[in-house]
């Protein structure tokens, strides 16, 4: 019986570890449903990009207030993990504050840092909740932000607040028990921040305090394990991990460079009687452009999983700002939702199951993709280097090249280019007529 808490702890830990591993494999499988794209070159530049954008939060600082609050939560999350390590060791070995004798005099300072971070996380999350639900900052709103995405954001913030409250009440009661010389609660030195909370609990007797301390301890660690599992389910919170590989594999070319399709190059060169590079031979034509998630690249799919649903892209999109249906955030969220659906189909109905649905049509409409000006404002705004334009362009390619369904005026433009070598219907022989303007 003595070991019961340790056994329960070990079981919880293994169960969450198992669940998380399974989820990571699922996400990896889904991402690898995409076409290949070479993002393995220039490792030095990639590392630098990841360090600046993911680790260093560079692009967040375009908006200083949320950047600072987010930084508190982010640093808090990373540093508090040292504290979680102590909890895990204590949990497994039945010890209490195992790091106290190890760090000796430094221990209270360490705890003080954690407590400071816990309070800043708590305050930041509370402000975030207010921004979302009371002030109703516009970019958190929108067609795609109803129901689950809205709830998801609020769940994440509430869990974080709950975890911090558990942690702080655990420390407060522990601190009081230490001064009362309660057995088990070895004196570690005063905790600065929760010192101020002591008056709240002072009236309680030891057994009540022990109950609060234990409750705080268990709720905190179970909460963390549950939260860790939650991150890998269907939550935008996944960005905390996947933002790192996602920024590492960023497009390093100028934003204006849109990919050329090698399979088209081959056909064009054959048509114009030009020599075709031998290397191009095995580029299987397949489908031109993208109709569904499998037609996109694995990088597009990784980006869909990286989206934090922050709406910075949409808030800068000229089409969205002027009332068009296009929202680059929705493009990313739809891609993720569809990918998850395809993944579930694979699990439940086998690899080759066709559900008759597709990303273009059932999730993203033609009206949306047609409104994009390829201005790259969304790409510039995204804190984790997501490129919605790449997806939009591939969907357009499908519409135009596979289904030949362009708006009539685009068809006109195409035939002008084909026949008159300019997008307007002018005679090619008049191309130099502008010279007359020179000597007017």
């Amino acid at each position: 019986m003595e070991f019961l808490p340790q056994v329960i702890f070990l079981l919880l830990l293994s169960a969450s570890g198992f669940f998380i591993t399974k989820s990571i494999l699922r996400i990896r499988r889904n991402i690898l449903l995409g076409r290949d794209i070479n993002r393995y070159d220039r490792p030095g530049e990639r590392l630098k990009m990841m360090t600046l954008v993911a680790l260093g939060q560079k692009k967040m600082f375009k908006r200083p207030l949320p950047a600072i609050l987010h930084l508190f939560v982010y640093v808090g999350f990373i540093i508090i993990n040292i504290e979680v390590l102590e909890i895990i060791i204590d949990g497994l070995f039945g010890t209490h504050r195992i790091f106290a004798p190890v760090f000796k005099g430094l221990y209270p300072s360490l705890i003080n840092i954690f407590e400071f971070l816990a309070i800043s996380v708590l305050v930041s999350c509370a402000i975030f909740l207010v921004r979302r639900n009371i002030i109703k900052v516009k970019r958190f709103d929108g067609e795609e932000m109803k129901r689950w995405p809205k709830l998801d954001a609020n769940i994440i913030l509430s869990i974080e607040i709950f975890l911090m409250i558990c942690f702080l009440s655990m420390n407060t009661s522990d601190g009081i028990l230490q001064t009362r010389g309660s057995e088990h609660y070895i004196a570690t030195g005063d905790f600065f921040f929760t010192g101020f909370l002591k008056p709240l609990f002072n009236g309680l007797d030891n057994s009540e305090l022990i109950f609060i301390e234990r409750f705080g301890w268990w709720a905190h660690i179970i909460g963390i394990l549950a939260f860790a599992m939650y991150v890998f389910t269907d939550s935008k919170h996944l960005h905390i991990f996947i933002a790192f590989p996602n920024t590492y594999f960023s497009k390093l070319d100028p934003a204006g460079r849109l990919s050329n399709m090698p399979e088209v190059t081959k056909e064009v060169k054959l048509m114009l009687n030009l020599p075709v590079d031998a290397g191009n031979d095995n580029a299987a034509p397949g489908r031109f452009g993208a109709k569904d998630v499998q037609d996109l690249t694995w990088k597009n799919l990784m980006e869909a999983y990286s989206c934090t649903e922050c709406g910075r892209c949409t808030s800068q999109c000229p089409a969205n700002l002027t009332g068009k249906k296009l929202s680059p955030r929705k493009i990313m969220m739809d891609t993720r939702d569809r990918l998850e659906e395809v993944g579930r189909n694979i699990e439940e109905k086998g690899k080759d199951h066709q559900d008759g649905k597709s990303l273009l049509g059932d999730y993203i409409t033609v009206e949306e993709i047609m409104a994009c000006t390829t201005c790259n404002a969304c790409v510039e705004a995204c804190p984790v280097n997501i490129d919605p334009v790449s997806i939009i362009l591939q969907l357009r390619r499908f519409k135009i090249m596979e289904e030949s369904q362009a708006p009539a005026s685009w068809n006109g433009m195409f035939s002008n280019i084909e026949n008159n070598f300019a997008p307007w219907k002018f005679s090619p022989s008049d191309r130099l007529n502008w010279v007359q303007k020179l000597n007017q």
Partner: protein
Amino acid sequence: MSENMINVPTMADLAAKGLTPEILFWVGCAGSFDERAKSITAAFVKILNKLSVNFAVLGTEESCTGEPAKRAGNEFLFQVQAVSNIEVMNAYGIKKIVTACPHCFNTIKNEYPELGGNYEVLHHSEFLQQLINEGKIKLQGGGEFKGKKITYHDSCYLGRSNNIYEAPRKVLEILDAELVEMKRSRTKGLCCGAGGAQMFKEPEPGFKDINIERTEEAIETGAKVIAAACPFCMTMLSDGVKNKEKESDIKVYDIAELIAKYEGL
């Protein structure tokens, strides 16, 4: 009279004489055919001519870069255009290209190399900045824009697409005008609404046209001159100014036109 006549050599003319110019001036479809953009072309050529820049154009051998087709999703048509243009330019042994169109600039610079077209490509704002740095275009003091408010509209295909924010502003500095920024500028600059082949179709339903939104921002600065560096932005902003019935007191000029005026050309 004949000394005022400006001669525009074509690559074919020069090749027949066994000459290769230092620079190919890529005029682009808008610069060749659009009434308003033709004036930008003319202004730029006047500057090249005055400074005795050794250049030529492709003339009737020039063909659409394929940019609007590509952005519309017609990769096939784009590549037909690109590969054909590259054949022509490589046959002439072209090394360096200058163009006044950010769309042509971006495509030739970024999308042609993979298809076999490797050139040094400059947008005319960069080229003009070089001429200023080399002291070939000088600050003379005075001029019709001195002290006047000018606002510069960032073209997406220069700015965010290729990180060219300062060159056009540096060029404008020579005018000794008061450069005022719009609410959204540089990395946050708002698109004029023409990119991504939107120039060639009606916008999707919404509550406003993008060019109107942008023109309103430009008008808010109180500037009497809106400087552009792209023939498509030129069209969109001019239409916007007309729509707001401000065409008598607000003018939209390309940076090349402003420099040409400043130089008395």
